C-alpha cells in the first residue's frame, strides 16, 4: 500500500497543493514545525539541567503532527492526544508554559484550556482511543458538527484498546480520525517486531476508511486529514490514517537510542527529514526565505523563553492540591486525610 505523497523527499511537488491552505497557513505550518524542532533542543537542555522530568522529543514527526492538526479546526474540533503531540496540543491552545510544567511534574501543568476541546495527554498507550470514539459519537448525538482527532503510535496500535476503539467507531459512525504515527519504533522495538501487518489496512477489518500517508510530507498529511474530516462531518464516519514517519531522536530523555538504532538507518531517515522537504518546496514557491526563517526563529525563541518564564514563575506547589478534584464533593474520609496531612505540614513533619 503506497503511502500518499504530495511532496517528494527532495521537495518537488508531485500533486496539487491541497485546498484550504492559503499563504498564511502554509507559512504557519512551517513555523509550527520549526517550533517543534527547536522545542526539542530547548526541552532536552532544560531536562539536563533538572528542570523537566522526562521529555519525549518529536523530531522527525513534525509534518505528521502539524499537517493533521492544521486540517482540523481547533475552534470546533477536538484533540485527544498521546504524549508525543506537543505541537498538536499547542495548536489547540495549550500554553507552552503549561506544557513544560506538566513535564516538570507541577500540578499546574495539568491545566487545560477552558474550551474543553483538548483532552489531557495520554500516557497509557491507546487507552485514549476509545475516549476519542465516545467523544465523537457523543458530538454526533448532541447534534454538533465537529470531528475528533486522536493520535497514537505504532506501538500503541498493538493494544486491544486500539482495536476496540476503531471497531466501535465503525459501528457508531463516529466522526473520529485516528492518526497512527508509525515512527518505526516503540521505544527500542522496531516496527517489524511490533507488527507484520499494514496498519492502514486495519481499517478494512473494522469498516472505517483507511489511508496510508507519507508522514514526513506535511501537505499529504494535511490533505488526507482534511478529506477524513470532511467525511466525518458529512456522516461518512471514521478514518484511520497511518502516517509513515520516523523518530529521529530518542524515545525520551531517559532513553539511549544508540543502543538499538542502526546508524545507517538513521542517516537514511534523515534524508527524508520533513522540515527540509517542506522548507525546500516552500522556498521554491516563494513563500519562505531567510528573513522568514529568522523571524520564525525569533518568534520561537521568544515563545519558548516566555514559556520558561511562566514556568519559573509557577511558584511552589500548593500542598493541598494533592487532595483537590478527586470527587466533586469531598467525602469525609478524604477530608480527614487532607486535614491530617495539612496538620502534619504545619507541625513541620
Amino acid at each position: 500500500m503506497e503511502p500518499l505523497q504530495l511532496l517528494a523527499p527532495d521537495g518537488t511537488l508531485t500533486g496539487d497543493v491541497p485546498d484550504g491552505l492559503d499563504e498564511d497557513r502554509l507559512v504557519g505550518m512551517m513555523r509550527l514545525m520549526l517550533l517543534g524542532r527547536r522545542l526539542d533542543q530547548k526541552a532536552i537542555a532544560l531536562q539536563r539541567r533538572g528542570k523537566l522530568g522526562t521529555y519525549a522529543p518529536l523530531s522527525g514527526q513534525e509534518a505528521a503532527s502539524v499537517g493533521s492538526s492544521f486540517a482540523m479546526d481547533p475552534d470546533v474540533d477536538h484533540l485527544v492526544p498521546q504524549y508525543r503531540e506537543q505541537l498538536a496540543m499547542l495548536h489547540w491552545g495549550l500554553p507552552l508554559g503549561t506544557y513544560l510544567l506538566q513535564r516538570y511534574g507541577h500540578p499546574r501543568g495539568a491545566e487545560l484550556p477552558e474550551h474543553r476541546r483538548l483532552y489531557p495527554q495520554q500516557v497509557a498507550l491507546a487507552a485514549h482511543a476509545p475516549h476519542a470514539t465516545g467523544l465523537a459519537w457523543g458530538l454526533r448525538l448532541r447534534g454538533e458538527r465537529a470531528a475528533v482527532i486522536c493520535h497514537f503510535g505504532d506501538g500503541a496500535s498493538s493494544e486491544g484498546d486500539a482495536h476496540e476503539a476503531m471497531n466501535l467507531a465503525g459501528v457508531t459512525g463516529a466522526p473520529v480520525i485516528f492518526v497512527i504515527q508509525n515512527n518505526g519504533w516503540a521505544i527500542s522495538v522496531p516496527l517489524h517486531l511490533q507488527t507484520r501487518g499494514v496498519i492502514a489496512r486495519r481499517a478494512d477489518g473494522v469498516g472505517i476508511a483507511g489511508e496510508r500517508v507519507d508522514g514526513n510530507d506535511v501537505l499529504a498529511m494535511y490533505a488526507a486529514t482534511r478529506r477524513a474530516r470532511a467525511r466525518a462531518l458529512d456522516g461518512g464516519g471514521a478514518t484511520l490514517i497511518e502516517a509513515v514517519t520516523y523518530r529521529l531522536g530518542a524515545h525520551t530523555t531517559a532513553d539511549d537510542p544508540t543502543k538499538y538504532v542502526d546508524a545507517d538507518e538513521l542517516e537514511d531517515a534523515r534524508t527524508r527529514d520533513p522540515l527540509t522537504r517542506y522548507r525546500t518546496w516552500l522556498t521554491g514557491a516563494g513563500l519562505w526565505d531567510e528573513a522568514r526563517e529568522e523571524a520564525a526563529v525569533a518568534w520561537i525563541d521568544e515563545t519558548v523563553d516566555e514559556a520558561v518564564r511562566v514556568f519559573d514563575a509557577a511558584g511552589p506547589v500548593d500542598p493541598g492540591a494533592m487532595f483537590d478534584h478527586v470527587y466533586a464533593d469531598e467525602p469525609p474520609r478524604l477530608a480527614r486525610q487532607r486535614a491530617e496531612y495539612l496538620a502534619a505540614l504545619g507541625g513541620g513533619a
Partner: protein
Amino acid sequence: MTVRSMIETIRLTLEDEMARDERVMVLGEDVGTQGGVFRATEGLKARFGADRVVDTPVAEAGIIGASIGLATAGMVPVAELQFLGFAHQAFHQIGFQLARFRYRTLGRFPLQVTIRAPYGGAVHAPELHSDAFEGMLANAPGLKIVAPSTAADARGLLTSAIRDPDPVLYLEPLRGYRLVRDEVPDDEHLVPIGTARIARPGRDVTVLAWSFQVVNALEAAEAAAEEGIEVEVVDVRSLVPLDETTIAESVSRTGRCVVVEEAPRTAGFGAELTSTVQELCFLDLEAPIARLAGWDTPYPMPLLEKDYIPGTARILDAVRRTVAF
C-alpha cells in the same frame, strides 16, 4: 409505593431517568432489542430509540472508554457490563481512566458516568459469571461503588448514581433480581451515596453486609433472635465513600462485629471494613471482628457454590462465636 422486584425497579428507574434527562443514554451488550439478558433495559429502546439505547460490540474496555468520551461530549452514559466478571476486561478503563479523569484534569473533565453490573453467586452460572470483585475496584480513588440490597434502595441509589457528577459503579445482586421484592416509591427517590442503612436494629452484635448478603444476614438475625441474640444488621450499601459514622456508631454500641462478603477472603473489601472498624472502635471491641467471605479459591463449579459463599448458617455461626468470645 408499590411492591416491586429489584430488576423491575431498576428498569423503571432507568426509564424515569431517561425521561427526565435526555442526555441519559444506556449502552452495553444486548441492552437494546433484547432489553438486556436480565431484562433490565426492556422496552427502553422502543421508547427512547436506538441512539439512546445502544447495543454495543462485545468489547468491555471499549464500552467504558467510549462512556468517558460520551460524558465529555455532554451525554450521561449508563453503561451495562453484562456481568461484573467481565469488568476485568475493562479494568484499566474503569480504575485508571474513568476514576481519575476529574483529578488529572483539575476538574475540567468531570465524568458523569454510571456503570451497572450484576454480580454475586448462587445462581448456577458458568465460570466467571459469579465473581464478586468489588474490593479490587474500591482501591481506585475517584470511583464510587454502591450495592443495594432492597428494591427501594435499588431505585434510590440508581437515581443518585446517574445524577452524581462522578463515576459510580452500581452493583446489582444477580440472586436478588427477582427474589428481592419490597415497597418502592413510585415517584422520584434518592438515597444519598455514602450512607449506610440500619436494616435491623439490635444490641448484641453488628453484622456488616451489602448486596445479597444483607438478605442472608437478616435471615441469620431472625434465627439468632430465637436464641436470644439481638443482631444489628447494617447494610453498608455504599462501599465508596463509606459511611464510617453509622458503622462505627453501631459497632461501638454493640461491641462486636461480623463482616460478610462473597469475594475471596484475602484482600476482599471485608478487609477494609474490618480495618476501619478496628481503627474507629478499638476500645469498644469486646471480640475480634469476624470476617466471613468466599474461600481463598477461585469461584468453584456451580454444584459447590452454595458452600463457597457465606450463607445464613455460616453467618449465624460467626454471630454466635463472636457473642460468646
